[in-house]
């Protein structure tokens, strides 16, 4: 590329596999720094619970599409926040205040349904955890919860799904990757070759595989860059199958209310430029 004064600057090729080695020297750090920057806080009224807390099912919703699905079909019927994982310390903010802003990037909240006696936990992360923190984030979660089964829901752009037969796929399809310990058959939805890019999802699923936990990762491959009801409802088939079938589900009115709020939010955005 041409630099100032007409001198040609030599641009060395970069590699997708390795970082610039000068940067590597400069930014040498310990992974302990990332560990210290994450905190797990239990709700004050549950602080006495033994850790790790055993639960039959842990549902992890990562990204806007999955969190909206969980909110519409389960949390809207009635839920309480039992814990959160955040980069903020408790002495900086109280638990209520921390959770009231859980839609922010650095706080993920864990919910329990109040509509039933079920001890299942549903976790909502609207944004993905940074790559370098994903390992410690996952460690924090599984240090405090010991689920019998894990269901991970997330979404990705349809163009990231690699297959030899792309013509057979309809928009907004769901594919599953399960760990060796997951016994149930999930027909016709298994993935062909691909890898995920969002580190928190990969980290959780990898933890479950290495530690022989039953886990299934459901990914909605969507063509829309916005959250819409079509992509959210791509997960709908899960409501008819175990283990999500056993959770208390919201009424159709409650679901519609959440999904309609997506539409009104989108309309407001569009009206700004009319």
């Amino acid at each position, binding site marked *: 590329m041409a630099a100032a004064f007409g001198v040609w600057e030599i641009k*060395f*090729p970069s*590699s*997708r*596999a*390795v*970082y610039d*080695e000068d*940067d*590597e020297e400069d*930014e*040498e*750090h*310990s*992974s302990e720094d*990332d*560990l210290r920057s994450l905190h797990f806080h239990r709700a004050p009224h549950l602080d006495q619970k033994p850790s790790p807390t055993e639960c039959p099912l842990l549902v992890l919703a990562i990204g806007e599409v999955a969190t909206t699905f969980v909110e519409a079909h389960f949390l809207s019927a009635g839920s309480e926040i039992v814990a959160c994982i955040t980069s903020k310390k408790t002495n900086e903010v109280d638990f209520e205040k921390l959770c009231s802003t859980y839609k922010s990037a650095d706080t993920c909240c864990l919910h329990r349904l109040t509509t039933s006696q079920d001890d299942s936990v549903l976790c909502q992360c609207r944004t993905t955890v940074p*790559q*370098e923190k*994903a*390992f*410690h984030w*996952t460690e924090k979660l599984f240090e405090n919860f010991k689920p019998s089964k894990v269901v991970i829901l997330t979404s990705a752009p349809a163009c990231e*799904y*690699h*297959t*030899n037969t*792309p*013509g057979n796929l309809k928009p907004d399809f769901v594919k599953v*990757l*399960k*760990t*060796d310990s997951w016994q149930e058959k999930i027909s016709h939805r*298994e*993935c*062909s*070759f*691909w*890898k*995920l890019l969002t*580190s928190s*999802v*990969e*980290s959780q*699923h*990898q*933890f479950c*595989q*290495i*530690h022989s936990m039953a886990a299934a*990762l459901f990914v909605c491959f969507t063509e829309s860059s916005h959250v819409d009801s079509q992509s959210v409802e791509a997960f709908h088939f899960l409501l008819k199958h175990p283990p999500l079938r056993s959770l208390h589900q919201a009424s159709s009115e409650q679901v519609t209310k959440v999904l309609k709020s997506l539409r009104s939010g989108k309309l407001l955005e569009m009206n700004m430029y009319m």
Partner: protein
Amino acid sequence: MFVASGKDVSVNWSEFTLILPAVSIGNVGQLAVDLVVSSISPNGCHIGYFYDSCILPLVGNDAFTQSTESLGKLNVSVEVYKNDDLKFVVVQQRAPLVKGCQTEYCRKLVTWIKSCNFKQVILVSSISATERVDSQIGGSPLRYVVTPAAKNLLPLFDGLSWKTLEKRPKFPHATEESSNENRDLFLPGGGFTKKLYEACCRDDIPLAVLLTFCCEGDNISDAVNLFLYINDWLKMVPRTEVEAKVLGKASSFVFPASWCSMFGSPVHPDGNLF
């Protein structure tokens, strides 16, 4: 760091050779190790994982199962395979390291290597072809480097007509005739290759680094060449079988199934890109 997938895994591998890749330019080391794993199957078996905060998480569908009907097991960032007939332990690393963690990872890796008591270690790597000096441009792009503890391999490598990697002057303006103390290994794009080499020199570990000069792009041919280079020494598969596969003739040697989608999905024949 090492997590065994079964219960009865002894880690005293004093008769075994450890083969592992560096995440380096063009991912050639990883692709070559894919071929090693593929060639030691079906007698090679999966024995565990590396689980460490220095490695970025990754999950994907089985990289080696050929049939789309036979849905294989989940693959994660780093997996460990063993072949008792050939006395190999093979580590396949599929994800890069967290930025700034090369030194920490090399320290942990050396500790693990020492605890397993390996006979010898082979690091499969690549370095940037754009940084070659004139004497490196002609002839074979394949080179090797050994630690002082692996000097016994030199007569064998001489017998194979292998070339050692040329050292460079430590200071840019030093003359070509500078003494050996003022010359150093130059491994641009080699990832953690140099750090692991130096750590193995310090701890007296017999390490041979086998590498190739390459550029980013379709690196399958680089990987096959590097695999054949290793195979000339270790005699894993008949060379003619690999050459027949490359030429598209009938062969018992197979490329890993995951290589099919290396460059994404094919364009749909009836589809319209726009």
